[in-house]
């Protein structure tokens, strides 16, 4: 029997845009894989780098942050800060030898339901090709 492995994706979505964008893609009946787990955050800038690493430790295979387009932040400037932080964090993960494709930032507005679904489809495809996350897992954190 062949077991087909499916990746676990954690998507951190900003309450004011991407979360609504995910909703819109649902009401529009656009399909995206069910292994994307959405976590709602008040702003992309709320994403503590620890959350990302923790998601990986607990068994996520890919983590994506979706926020408002730069300039459209509900709190005016939150995503500008998030952008710098994520750039540096991703660069550090790369420096430590973690596969580059496992983390991503995408700007998705509340009106971009189609973009949300397309992004998720593409991200799941990338992660499926990368395979299981072995380099960042933490056995003690798993059930």
């Amino acid at each position, binding site marked *: 029997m062949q077991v087909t492995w499916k990746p676990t994706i954690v998507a951190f979505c900003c309450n004011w845009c991407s979360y609504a964008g995910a909703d819109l893609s649902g009401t529009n009946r656009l399909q995206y894989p069910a292994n994307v787990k959405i976590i709602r955050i008040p702003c992309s800038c709320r994403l503590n780098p620890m959350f990302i690493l923790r998601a990986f430790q607990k068994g996520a295979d890919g983590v994506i942050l979706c926020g408002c387009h730069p300039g459209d932040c509900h709190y005016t400037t939150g995503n500008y800060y998030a952008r*710098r932080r994520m750039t540096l964090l991703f660069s550090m993960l*790369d420096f430590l030898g973690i*596969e580059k494709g496992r983390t991503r930032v995408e700007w998705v507005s509340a009106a971009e339901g189609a973009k949300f679904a397309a992004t998720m489809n593409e991200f799941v495809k990338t992660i499926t090709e990368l395979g299981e996350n072995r380099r960042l897992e933490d056995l003690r954190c798993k059930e």
Partner: protein
Amino acid sequence: MQGVKEKALELLASGKAQRVLGWKTGEFFYDLTPGVFESAEEVEREFEYGVFAGANLSKYCIAESKKDGVTAVFLKPCDAYSFVQLLKEYKVKREKFYIVGVQCDGMCDMEKIRAAGISGATAVSEDGDTLKISTIYGEETMKKSDALLLKCKTCKSKKLVIFDELLGEQGEDCPESHRFDEVERLERLSPEERFSFWRGELSRCIRCNACRNVCPACTCETCVFDNHNLGTDNKAAASDFEENFFHIIRAFHVTSRCTDCGECSRVCPQHIPLHLLNRKFIKDTNELYGAYQAGADLESRPPLMDFRKDDCEPSVVYERGGAKG
């Protein structure tokens, strides 16, 4: 450097300072540790300055800042950067300190002396570029440049950015420090090689938290890693991601505030090159957001507390330098 101890005595006697923050001999003659001296007798008995005074005293200023009166503190160039950074973050009060800037031409590492095959050392003194080492087997000499601490080998600046009084000459930045060379070497490796390098280094971590405790930029009253509910405040038995997690976050939390004083690597009992993580962040911020030196002044905004509308997107990481993964 002569005159440091004398200066401590003079400052106490003149009443300019109520106490002196300096160095004293620890368990061995080569582990000078920070110490607070309140009387001339204490200074006479314990104060010590020499080629092993690598400890950065800035972090201890946070505690001294809460005491009454003025504390005289000795700061080497790299410590002065840390002090300015603490001032910038309102962690120390300027008026509570009388700063004696001490010019420094590098501090030594006992391990390096041992590695050169000199054992049984009982005293070390410097004479220009030469170290004179008295051992139980007789006198030995070695070049000082071979015995320097890792952080001193790639010294970024000999400029004292803050002082009330100066011992020695004011120095200059060292643009030819080559401090990013090792980071660049790692960047050129393949992701697999980098992963096994860091797994090898970081899995030696015993989570003693020395790197965190010594860091002048780590000044939170309660650290996120002191949270027992996290379930990861101890060492994992297997080689696991936990050490990476701790060290990534430790370095990330001081990004754009780290002055690159190198204390983390100096105190690591496992000799993990932790400063490379900090330097990677410094190198990235310099390249992506413009050159920035934490602690160089009080006015500039740290890169992570600032932004530009035309900053690069995080996807830039997938395209730039190093081996592709």
